[in-house]
């Protein structure tokens, strides 16, 4: 889910039309625009855009 606002240990996140407040105390540093994995109201990890692109690039290359 995409972070839209950060306030202390909590953040507003968005996925499509779904808006939620999640606890971000488990993560080191997040900011608006970051994507996070959310489990039962808690952000458990920040999604790494560079590694996501690398996986897709690898896949595209791998299967050609």
């Amino acid at each position, binding site marked *: 889910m995409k972070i839209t606002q950060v306030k202390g240990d909590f953040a507003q996140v968005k996925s499509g039309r779904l808006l939620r407040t999640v606890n971000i105390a*488990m993560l080191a540093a997040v900011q608006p625009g970051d994507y996070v994995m959310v489990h039962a*109201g808690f952000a458990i*990890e920040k999604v*790494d855009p560079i590694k*996501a692109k690398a996986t897709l690039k690898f896949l595209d290359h791998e299967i050609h």
Partner: protein
Amino acid sequence: MKYIDEFRNSRLIRRLFGKIKAESADQPVNIMEVCGTHTQSFRRFALSGLLPQNLRLISGPGCPVCVSQESFIDSAIELSRRKDTIILTFGDMLRIPGTKSTLEKESGNSADIRVVYSCWDALKVARANTSKRAVFLAVGFETTAPTVALTILQAAKEKIGNISFLCALKLIPPAMLYLLKDRRLNLSGFLCPGHVSTIIGAKAYLPIVNNYHIPCCVAGFEPLDILEGLLILLRDINAKRARITNEYRRAVRTNGNLKAQHLISSVFRKEGAVWRGLGLIPQSGLVIRKEYSRFDAAKIFSFKLQTPNSKLPTKCRCAEVLKGLILPPECRLFGGECTPDNPIGTCMVSSEGACNVYYRYR
């Protein structure tokens, strides 16, 4: 990038299927998907039917609700009958059978049982109902454990005196090691859970690779993630190579989420745990440390949770499904006497239970 559409690219999916087919030999290959969400994704995206015949995907014990022991449900039911208690739980737990009843039935008998989305919500209920005791049913794996730990720490910080946690938190790697001792399974590889691995890290599967020489691949839950994971495993199996591969690098680090791991070890200690259908597995459960025992419902109400399971309902083969020894349709009750509307075994109750998933996506 939105991290969903990109990993559902149909052109890449079709090509990956071709690669998997080319990599498949004639001999049977058994790969266990440990996580209930993987089981769900396989069926939801209709991937299973397109895989080569010799590649057998086996569901593992990775549905926390399915492996909750009867003594845990019985204790929760006993607590729910107290007039001064509010039970807070994830929705899937309501229909899991104890030895005589379910929380759903008790709810109809005037027990105050409330479904929450997050354990953090239990704090709000406790604050708003100071004349009552709030008890959260803490069920889950390594992904849920740090969320419960944070909630307990917050309760301690705020000195909330009317909240406690009935814990049945379990650990995945000890269960995987336990399953490998059963030679009937004849496993060739593990598709390791994505969210659990986010917390414990890809390196948590080293004992499996080192002691049993079986390849492990951590994978995400989108079709491309799953298929790439399978391709990696097939290549490792064919090359007789035992190693850990992390396909889910965008969310899983080698060492996992260290902050979350610290939270878990600060609040919980490891102990043997009884898994429904599997029995007692050493060091596979988390119990609340002495420092936080004022929040431990098992201590407060003197429950013994780790008692052996009684026999499963007659003819129900959930135990074999949870061990990966049979697929759900091999049970004679599947789809007839046992359906999601009228579940007999736990695997038919939860949306991540293997029987439930196989039924819904037949």
